[in-house]
């Protein structure tokens, strides 16, 4: 004690001051001998130039650092600032994305509600402007924060986490769906808790469940609403998982989403080429082993594992077992939710037996059912889906029957009567979770789908199934047949139900009833296009599945539907090409299978469909036209009027020349002359009809057309040089006709005996054409071409035909001269065609040249026509292949030349005459040396 005191005194020694002595400086004395000067911090006055700022002059770095502030208001302000900043300058987003996301996500679990709401808003803003692939690397972090929020101990944070989830579901469904394991557990934990307490409870529970529905009295909403909001998100999440899954090819039957409207897209990319591109080496083909025509550039291989090793619960959901495990936990919970929901509602019965529910209950039930529906689809493969269905059936059929089917047709309770008592309390709460009201129809349809998916294919339990399926079936029939207005999606689901029922029940009467109900719906007017095509593809897919299912194949409704297709096609006209092409596809499928009903109906309506003026075939786009032409192949009989129409189609120019060509060839194959026949298929058209079709297509004009042409004024007048009046056809028509003629000639050539063919041809010419005064130039050219191609040296053409042809020929030559003078480039093709036809005709029909030369009577010509004649002769003389022929007619030729020189007694010898004489002399000189060769030729006459 003493020592302590002493020590203390040491500490506080008294300083003794003495007079006269300088006062010692105090320890804490301030040294004041300094000077002050002003410092200018110019930087502080300037703005922060490093980047854009908010209206409070805060840059992004400031704002982000403020997020760590302890004060909630500062954080809130910073989040507002961030949002403002990002909307001003979106470029910041790209630079700071990583930091932004990590900082903002960190405040999602903030204690303050306003901060969370603001953070969610910022997140939504970011999500709007950043695509999924750029967020992908940060997504593990985001989802970790999300999980954290979802499993947070405080209820409000959990509730707000739902909003965050909404954002992700809206913008990044694929990223969320990529790692479903953790999230699914979170969902479960939000509405239930794990029963960890030991054996006592477990013994009670027969199925050994360890999860039970939880009730949290602290929440601001009723537990039913809370569950509804969780289930809603769970439903959306599962939807995302199902949609993101890569679908395989070929499973057209059951995958409900793409059942009817699906486009088959395989892993192998098919290469579609056409010959012309190939010939000119525009494309090269490379066929790869096992990967089709194109190698896939993107590899699916990743070195890093997709998910971390710590995530173990139901990883990936890619096998039946994991899905089953998850379902085994979830389904009992869902059933509990359902039971509670239905218990909370008192039993209201409407007059027509529907069980009435309040809107809230309805939405809960709807969510339960849609989640069940989605659970089925979670399996990656279709065959697993069947396994899962069987499992569901085994485990839960009794439960489902008991709970769902007890009050099956559900209806909405009339809101106006009962709302008033309850509403005021609830209306406030309802605003917290805005959920769209669910129609009872949707609920019932989903229920149908869930239950029907449980029904089994085999006939073992048919009786048992039939008992609970009956109400479902009557409901489906009533809905479809009763004229209820259905949305596209509802109809899709209903059709899926019908599809499944038809294939599982395998009873003809039931199938008939169901299909009849669908048919009633189908026959409604004013269906939107989408719905219409859905129904169409439903029927056509059903038809394609018929093999092995006699109850479908014999269905009368289906037959009636098929028979009605051609009528529909005709009625639809050109108004809707896509729908038409769908119709044509269905018709095509049935026709290729030789369906009698369809073929009969097609045959009766063929004339209407193939009318060259206003038939569907000329109105639709090119692909559909081609399909329609192919349909002709399957017609059992092609009648004369139809052939007349088809010939009109070929010549009218409303279908392309190549299509006309394939039409002619298809008819060729269907005639008995076609040559290709396998088995006992009968020819669809008689030979007579076929030949007359070819002949009228060859002429290119119907008899009525020709008759009207005779009075037409626009034809070129007849002169001594062109004995026939030529009607100039438009260039396009000429080219089209020329192509068609080539095709017809080819068909005629391959018919068989050439001489008989030529006989028929010249008979036709004799009978129908020789009387004409006005002849279209395309027809004249075509005839010359056909005659020269078909003529056989053993046949002598009859006199009138040769005379007619020579008239044509001379007129064409005159036309050629006229064409050469006026339009040099445009008519090139036409000129070549005419010249080619003339020359080959002259060289292949020997007597033609002589008659043409005899027709050139110089004495009848006037002054202007002399040069023209000279030019024609010049052209003929300059064509070397004709020399021998000309020499054989040397006498006639000489006479013409002499006459020409005599009649053109101009003062000066004109140029054309000089040329002509020169050519003539050359030809004759050449001919005399080869005189012996031409002797033989002369014998031919």
């Amino acid at each position: 004690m003493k020592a302590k005191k002493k020590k203390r005194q040491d500490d506080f020694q008294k300083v003794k001051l003495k007079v006269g002595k300088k006062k010692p400086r105090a320890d804490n004395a301030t040294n004041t001998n300094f000077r002050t000067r002003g410092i200018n911090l110019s930087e502080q006055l300037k703005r922060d130039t490093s980047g854009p700022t908010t209206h409070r002059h805060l840059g992004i770095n400031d704002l982000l650092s403020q997020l760590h502030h302890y004060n909630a208001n500062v954080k809130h302000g910073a989040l507002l600032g961030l949002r403002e900043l990002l909307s001003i300058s979106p470029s910041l987003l790209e630079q700071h994305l990583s930091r932004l996301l990590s900082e903002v996500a960190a405040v999602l679990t903030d204690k303050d509600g306003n901060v969370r709401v603001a953070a969610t808003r910022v997140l939504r803003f970011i999500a709007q402007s950043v695509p999924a692939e750029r967020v992908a690397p940060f997504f593990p972090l985001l989802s970790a924060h999300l999980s954290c929020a979802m499993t947070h101990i405080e209820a409000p944070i959990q509730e707000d986490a739902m909003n965050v989830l909404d954002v992700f579901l809206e913008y990044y469904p694929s990223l969320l769906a990529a790692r479903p394991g953790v999230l699914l557990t979170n969902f479960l934990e939000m509405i239930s808790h794990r029963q960890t307490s030991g054996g006592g409870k477990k013994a009670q529970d027969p199925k050994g469940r360890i999860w039970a529905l939880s009730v949290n009295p602290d929440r601001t909403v009723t537990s039913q609403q809370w569950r509804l909001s969780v289930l809603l998100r769970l439903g959306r999440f599962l939807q995302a998982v199902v949609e993101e899954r890569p679908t395989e090819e070929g499973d057209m039957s059951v995958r409900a989403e793409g059942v009817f409207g699906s486009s088959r897209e395989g892993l192998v990319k098919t290469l579609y080429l056409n010959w012309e591109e190939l010939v000119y080496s525009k494309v090269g083909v490379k066929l790869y082993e096992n990967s089709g025509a194109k190698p896939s550039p993107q590899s699916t291989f990743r070195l890093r594992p997709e998910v971390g090793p710590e995530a173990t619960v139901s990883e990936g959901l890619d096998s039946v077992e994991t899905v089953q495990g998850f379902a085994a936990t979830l389904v009992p919970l869902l059933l509990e939710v359902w039971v509670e929901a239905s218990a909370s509602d008192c039993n209201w019965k409407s007059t027509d037996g529907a069980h009435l529910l309040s809107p809230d209950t309805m939405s809960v039930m709807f969510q339960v059912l849609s989640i069940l529906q989605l659970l089925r689809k979670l399996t990656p493969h279709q065959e697993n889906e069947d396994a899962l269905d069987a499992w569901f059936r085994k485990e839960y059929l009794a439960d489902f029957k008991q709970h769902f089917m007890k009050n099956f047709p559900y209806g909405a309770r009339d809101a106006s009567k009962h709302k008033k008592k309850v509403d005021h309390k609830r209306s406030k709460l309802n605003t917290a979770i805005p959920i769209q009201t669910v129609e009872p129809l949707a609920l019932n349809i989903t229920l149908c789908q869930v239950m029907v998916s449980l029904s089994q294919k085999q006939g073992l339990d048919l009786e048992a199934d039939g008992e609970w399926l009956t109400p479902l079936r009557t409901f489906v029939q009533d809905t479809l047949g009763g004229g209820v207005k259905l949305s596209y999606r509802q109809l899709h689901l209903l059709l899926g139900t019908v599809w499944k029922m038809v294939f599982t029940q395998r009873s003809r009467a039931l199938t008939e009833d169901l299909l009849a109900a669908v048919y009633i719906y189908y026959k409604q007017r004013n269906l939107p296009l989408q719905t219409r095509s859905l129904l169409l593809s439903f029927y056509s897919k059903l038809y394609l599945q018929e093999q092995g299912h006699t109850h479908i194949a014999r269905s009368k409704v289906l037959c009636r539907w098929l028979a009605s297709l051609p009528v529909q096609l005709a009625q639809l006209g050109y108004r809707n090409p896509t729908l038409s092409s769908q119709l044509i596809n269905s018709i095509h499928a049935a026709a290729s299978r030789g369906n009698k009903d369809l073929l009969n109906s097609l045959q009766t309506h063929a004339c209407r469909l193939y009318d060259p003026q206003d038939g569907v075939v000329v109105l639709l786009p090119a692909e559909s036209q081609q399909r329609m032409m192919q349909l002709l192949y399957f017609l059992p009989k092609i009648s004369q009027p139809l052939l007349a129409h088809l010939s009109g189609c070929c010549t009218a120019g409303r279908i392309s020349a190549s299509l006309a060509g394939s039409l002619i060839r298809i008819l060729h194959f269907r005639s008995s002359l076609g040559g290709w026949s396998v088995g006992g298929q009968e020819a669809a058209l008689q030979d007579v009809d076929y030949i007359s079709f070819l002949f009228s297509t060859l002429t290119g004009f119907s008899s009525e057309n020709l008759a009207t042409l005779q009075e037409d004024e626009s034809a070129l007048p007849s002169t001594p040089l062109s004995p026939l009046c030529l009607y100039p056809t438009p260039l396009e028509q000429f080219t089209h006709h020329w192509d068609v003629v080539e095709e017809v000639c080819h068909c005629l050539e391959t018919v068989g005996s050439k001489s008989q063919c030529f006989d028929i041809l010249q008979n036709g010419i004799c009978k129908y054409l020789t009387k004409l005064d006005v002849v279209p130039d395309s027809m004249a050219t075509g005839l010359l071409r056909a005659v020269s191609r078909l003529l056989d040296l053993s046949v002598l053409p009859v006199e009138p035909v040769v005379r007619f042809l020579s008239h044509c020929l001379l007129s064409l030559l005159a036309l050629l001269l006229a064409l050469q003078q006026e339009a040099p480039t445009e008519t090139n093709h036409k000129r070549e065609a005419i010249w080619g036809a003339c020359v080959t005709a002259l060289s292949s029909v020997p007597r033609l040249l002589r008659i043409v030369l005899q027709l050139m009577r110089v004495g009848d010509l006037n002054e202007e026509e002399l040069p023209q004649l000279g030019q024609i002769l010049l052209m003929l003389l300059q064509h070397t292949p004709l020399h021998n022929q000309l020499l054989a007619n040397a006498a006639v030729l000489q006479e013409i030349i002499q006459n020409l020189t005599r009649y053109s007694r101009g003062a000066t010898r004109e140029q054309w005459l000089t040329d002509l004489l020169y050519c003539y002399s050359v030809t004759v000189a050449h001919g005399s040396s080869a005189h012996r060769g031409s002797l033989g030729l002369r014998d031919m006459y």
Partner: protein
Amino acid sequence: MNRTRRSGSYISQSTLRLSPEGTYEAGRGILVPRALCLFGGKMAAPLEVIVSSDSGSQLWNCTVFDPLSGSSLLSFRGGNSAARSLTVLRGEFLLSAQLGKNFINVWEIQRKDQLQQKIVCPGVVTCLTASPDGYFLAAGVAEAIYLWEVCTGKLLSVLSRHYQDVTCLKFTDDSSHFVSAGKDNLALVWNLCSVVQMDLSHAPEPRHILSRHSLPITDLHCGLMGTQARIATASLDQTVKVWELSSGELLLSVLFDVEIMSVTFDPCEYFLFCGGSDGNIFQVSLCSQSLSREKSFQSEGEGNQVFKGHRNLVTCLSVSMDGTLLLSGSHDESVRLWDIQSKQSIRCLAHKGPVTNAVIMPAPANMFLPDSRPAIPLPRFSRHLQSAEGEAGDNGDVCVRPGLHAQDEEETHLQRAERLYSLMTAITDKAVFGEGENTKVRIAELEEEVQTLKKVNKDLYEFSTQLLTKPT
């Protein structure tokens, strides 16, 4: 000499086939034995022969030519063959369906003058083919496909899956699958094993349905490589499509200006040959090199990829074993032999009517030995589908099924498995329901059986260890 050199270079091409990844891959091509090529011309019997038939000839049905000299070697008498129905069975029999009639002519390949038998069918035969291993014979009769087992002559199966007439049937080279094509625009790939299975409860289903053609299929060709083969189909819809047999995927579709009546690959599948209805034969290269700069100057004119010469439908195409010769038969009553590289017609063999079959095939050994006999005589073929149980039990016939490698499911296996399974379930059922002494007896029996099986296994083990450890 020239020919030898070419075939030599061809060998190197075919064995080292450039695969898409840029590595060399061996084995897809066919190996032509060099020695045979060398001596091919000098030997008395040629290595390959052309067999062709037409629908107009009065004197003979089909004729055998030597592809090198073009001389006619043999001609088989009797009737006329229908299109796509000429086939050689085991190198010992020649079969062809009679044109427009309901029977199949069978010759022993060394006896050209006399029919061995006529197989009567329920209808007009539209196509006919024998499996390369010689065990099965398939014919298309109207919409149905008839499948016979050659060794017993039994009709094993009638497949009526097509909706209209079957036009073409082809086996894969390992006889594990066959493909049928019909006028209903469909081509079906069948697994032979599943078709042959004697399961009468349900009709066999095709493995793939190739349904992308829009008009009847006219011809079908099945490439080499067994189940990894590619199939080419030609159709009246002016396209030729190439498919993968294993997956049923469409690989390639080429649209032409005319209907295509026949199609074939060369053995390496470098080229696809398509016979058009206008008499032209189009050649599509399946492994074209990417267009290099200097190549683009020499424009590949149309003439370079078209074989011109026929004047009517080209109905049959066939490529020789070494891939240098192309044989084509046409409705203009001629068969032409082309050199593929220069695309020139080497030879034109005139016929008396539209050509129905023309094929280059390795010469069967017996063909030119008049004294030879078939190793196994051909039984009478039955007309009717036999019910499996009744017949087999009565006659004590032996059912021969595809070889081991192709045999994944077999009827007896199934039965045995079923029996065992029922045995096992019976035991458990009884154990559950507690049929005391009966069960004990059964258990004793089974234990005994286990003992014997163990013993057998042990014996087998010892035997094989002896065999293996025995010093050679």
